[in-house]
């Protein structure tokens, strides 16, 4: 019995406390509130020190950013996320946006890391300027997809693709990473769309929300893309029938 109690005391003594109320909610250390009085209820947090989190070996790493750098990017992020209504955000389970820089997952650079269970989206504010705004919506889609897995059936999605086309096994185990729009789309808006089904869906969603004009142009000569956009639109409208894709 003494040995048992001693073991418990030792275990308690060697585990360090991460005593703060933000960690208590989203299990990410070293954060502070950046802005929480937003019209759609999103709470923006910023890293004050680097942090490491993740289900496997703390594989998500991000660094704190200079406050001036955050101020510069915040307007862009807020403008893009403000298109989502409070009810929609509640349904998809997104509440906290963590702003940091040089985000990586298992040492591979990432624009964002969604975690719908924690209602959190981590955004790298230093991500490529050219695609930054659109990618915010891309990452939001991953939250949507995780919250409504049944709606976004990958088997059905894959059935729209050209015959013999195969996605890669995962989004990080392929060199199809270019985010520029492909001239002759043939069902895929970007090279990154060809990585996995969920990335493909996220790309279509992000264009529909951020640059619908471009999608509409491509649809004229692309039946596959037409099916894919209909699929995304219909399922998003199932979640919220007043969701607006037009900018």
């Amino acid at each position, binding site marked *: 019995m003494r040995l048992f109690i001693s073991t418990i005391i030792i275990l*308690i003594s060697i585990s360090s406390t991460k005593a703060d109320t933000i960690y208590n909610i989203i299990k990410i250390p070293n954060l502070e509130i950046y802005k929480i009085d937003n019209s759609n*209820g999103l709470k923006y947090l910023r890293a004050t020190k680097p942090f490491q989190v993740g289900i496997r070996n703390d594989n998500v790493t991000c660094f704190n950013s200079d406050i001036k750098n955050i101020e510069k990017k915040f307007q862009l992020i807020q403008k893009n996320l403000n298109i989502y209504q409070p009810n929609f955000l509640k349904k998809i389970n997104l509440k906290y946006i963590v702003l940091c820089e040089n985000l990586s997952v298992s040492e591979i650079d990432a624009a964002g890391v969604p975690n719908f269970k924690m209602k959190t989206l981590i955004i790298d504010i230093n991500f490529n300027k050219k695609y930054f705004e659109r990618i915010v919506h891309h990452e939001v889609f991953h939250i949507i997809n995780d919250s409504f897995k049944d709606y976004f059936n990958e088997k059905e999605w894959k059935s729209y693709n050209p015959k013999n086309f195969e996605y890669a096994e995962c989004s990080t185990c392929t060199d199809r990473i270019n985010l520029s729009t492909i001239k002759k789309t043939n069902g895929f808006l970007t090279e990154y769309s060809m990585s996995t089904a969920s990335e493909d869906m996220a790309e279509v969603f992000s264009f529909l929300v951020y640059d619908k004009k471009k999608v509409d142009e491509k649809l004229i000569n692309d039946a596959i893309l037409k099916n894919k956009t209909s699929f995304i639109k219909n399922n998003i409208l199932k979640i919220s029938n007043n969701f607006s894709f037009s900018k």
Partner: protein
Amino acid sequence: MIKKIKQTISEKILLTFLILLGIGFFGSYGLIKNKCLFVKKYDPQKLKFEKPENIAILNVPCGNVIIELNPNVAPNSVKRFKILIRSGEYNNVAFHRVIKNVLVQAGDLEFGKKDNLNYSYIGTGKSSLGTIDSELDKPFDFKKGSVALARTSEKNTEDSQFFILLKDAPLFEGEYSPLGKVIYGLDVLKKIKYNDKVEFVLRPDFINSFKMLK
């Protein structure tokens, strides 16, 4: 014959100084040991309340904490809390989770009782009443002194455990079911035993009693 030696003035001063030093030392030792010495005491009988039926008196080692419950924000949660308070279930229950200047948490009725404290499971215990749903829709300002029901990482798992904030936590709005606010005696809670390194406390302080005023 023994010759009497008279004390010089400087010897007398030295002796007086040593006596005073001794008194000071033992006196301050007593003061330091009494952690409740400078904590203001509140007697609910001497205070006036607008809605005495919503006033709960939490008595802990350093005195009374007077809580005003707000059934308008989270009616089922407050109802559950009142039931447990009136039944005396919270008496002799540990403050098992204490984060210095952040929050104190108590209410584990299964593993946190003084006569049946279980360090292996404390914080995971339940009441015999079962869990209730989270009540998160109404606005509530989670300022210092706010009282709310604790839960597991999943929603709708509230039961008997509750926490009291020692600092503002605006992000708790929409996350935890609010019960009310401490209106007197927040300093009393700052004296609850904590551990600097971990949230869970060995040999914790206990709730002496928890009663409704009416």
